[in-house]
């Protein structure tokens, strides 16, 4: 494999000897992030006891409605929370190292180099004053100390990799000379410029029209395959999840309520929230059934109910749901659900 030729400057995947089945690339254990107000009186549990794992080369989709803690989770993984955000407990094992034990300087070497991120609005992610080449080359220069000329050559290769036509002329152009789809692909190129092991994409397609969205998703998937990249895909679009992801985690009120392989969850959701989510999107096959909306509002994260956070809106809630929050029940074949119904299923 390519590990035998370590000096090749090409963008072939450099597969390190990490057996995917035994050790996950990133493992989050009981991770909690709270936003604390200046006086310390109000605590918002944005991410609450989240445990997730993702293997190399795999795609994990994280879905949930606005304010369910998806983006905070992404910021937590890179440790770039705003000043009010505190990671209060848990572990983040990335390639066996706990990211929470790293110093700020060590984290800087992880960001962009080993874990990269594509932001919510890639249209605005480019500095209007610098050429495309400078911006694509920046992480390479920051992390590898490569001289400008070398970094620029690699920038050209990267633009070619994200299918930008005539990269030789494009590197010298400025962001305003590009179309939206191109700028997005350039942001993608910046993301993979240092060959990270994990790419976090936080709703990267929300600002694009549907045709460009599809192109971009295809590109991301191709890049993922070529570079053996693990991808965390944060979205609220279940259609994109179906197209892109292997694994799925559903978040509700800061907690992961259900995880498992996408196809299994789509066919047979365990958690009533997941079920409700799936019932609220139109399907091509059964046009007779009316779409159902989920009644009520998501709870205030600063004042969560005592029991399950979804209980007030849950059509199948019973006494126990309002008294105690359900722990994570592990089902067959790597599926988990935070629901007392799953416990009954387990017992039965």
């Amino acid at each position, binding site marked *: 494999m390519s590990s035998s030729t370590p000096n090749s400057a090409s963008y072939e995947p450099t597969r390190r000897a990490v057996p995917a089945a035994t050790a996950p690339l990133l493992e989050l254990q009981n991770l909690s992030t709270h936003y604390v107000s200046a006086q310390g009186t109000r605590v918002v549990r944005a991410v609450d006891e989240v445990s997730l794992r993702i293997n190399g080369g795999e795609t994990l989709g994280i879905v949930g409605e606005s304010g369910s803690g998806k983006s905070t989770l992404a910021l937590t993984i890179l440790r*770039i929370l705003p000043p009010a955000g505190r990671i209060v407990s848990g572990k983040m094992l990335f390639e066996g190292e706990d990211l929470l034990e790293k110093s700020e300087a060590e984290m800087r070497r992880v960001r962009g180099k080993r874990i990269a991120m594509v932001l919510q609005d890639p249209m605005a992610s480019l500095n209007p004053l610098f050429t495309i080449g400078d911006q694509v080359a*920046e992480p390479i220069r920051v992390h590898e100390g490569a001289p400008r000329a070398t970094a620029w050559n690699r920038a050209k290769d990267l633009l070619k990799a994200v299918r930008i036509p005539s990269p030789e002329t494009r590197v010298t152009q400025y962001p305003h000379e590009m179309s939206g789809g191109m700028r997005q692909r350039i942001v993608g190129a910046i993301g993979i410029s240092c060959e990270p092991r994990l790419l976090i994409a936080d709703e990267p397609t929300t600002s694009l029209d549907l045709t460009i969205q599809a192109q971009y998703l295809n590109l991301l998937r191709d890049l993922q395959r070529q570079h053996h990249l693990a991808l965390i895909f944060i979205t609220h679009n279940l259609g994109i999840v179906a197209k892109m992801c292997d694994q799925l985690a559903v978040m509700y009120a800061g907690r992961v309520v259900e995880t498992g392989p996408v196809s299994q969850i789509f066919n047979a959701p365990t958690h009533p929230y997941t079920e409700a989510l799936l019932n609220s999107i139109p399907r091509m096959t059964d046009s007779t059934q009316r779409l159902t909306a989920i009644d009520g509002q998501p709870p205030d994260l600063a004042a969560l109910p005592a029991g399950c956070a979804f209980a007030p809106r849950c059509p199948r809630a019973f006494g126990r749901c309002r008294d105690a929050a359900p722990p994570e029940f592990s089902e067959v074949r790597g599926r988990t659900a935070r629901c007392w119904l799953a416990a009954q299923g387990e017992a039965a």
Partner: protein
Amino acid sequence: MSTQAELIVAPPSFRRRPVFSWLGDFPLIPTLILVVIGLVAIFANVLAPHNPEVGSLVARFKPPFWQTGGSTKYLLGTDQLGRDVLSRLIFGARVSVVVGFTAVIFAGVIGTGLGILSGYLGGWVDQVVMRLTDTWLALPALTFAIFLAAIVGPSMWNIVLILGITYWTRYARVIRGEVLSLKEREFVRLAVVAGCSKRTIMVRHILPNVINTAIVLGTLMLGVVIIAEASLSFLGVGVPPPQPAWGLMLSDGKQGLMVGYWWLTVFPGCCIMLMVLSANLLGDWLRVKLDPQLRQL
């Protein structure tokens, strides 16, 4: 046929149009005045007909050449020590230009630097810098400058230092505001995600984006600084006497004003007014031209 011919002829005029429309509201006269003053300052020793610091006492209080008693030897007359007013004005331009530009740049460097630090780092740095500017702005600028001048003593470079220290706060305020909005922009967040250090982000991503504002502010500050320099010289704590400075000439000539020696004050006064007005007009045009909200892309 004729329409075809017109179509073929048309392109050159179309091609020239953007240049004209861009320059359409360019303040040509203020720029020319500033350029002339700049050139005069550079070539002062070539242009000046007499030594500005040495006069002949037999030729005191000569009026400009068009008045009776005036001669073409002293085009704009002479002062109480018999020194040529024109030569002093020419060398005075040098003082005004040097002090004006260096003080504006000095204040700009301090103010922009502290503004970026304050805006980007936030927290206690922000608190310290902003409370400092608040305190600074509460002090009357000219009185504060006089106070500083009394401490360090009069000299041209001390004036630059004093004006820089007095006027940096305006930059700091404006730049900090810019930075606060810039640092929430996606490209700055992308730089964070890409693992850039705070220093890299401030130098590479923030500074180039605020430099426009700093330049506009600088042109507008030029007028303020020149007036301040003239005021300090007028009050006797600016450029020390034998050197010709416009403010100093005003001060020296003020007794003469009562007995009809008008040329001693009117000429330097006009020079100060012209230069400040030009700087302000140019600054105003630049502000509109470089302001992304007023600029049409």
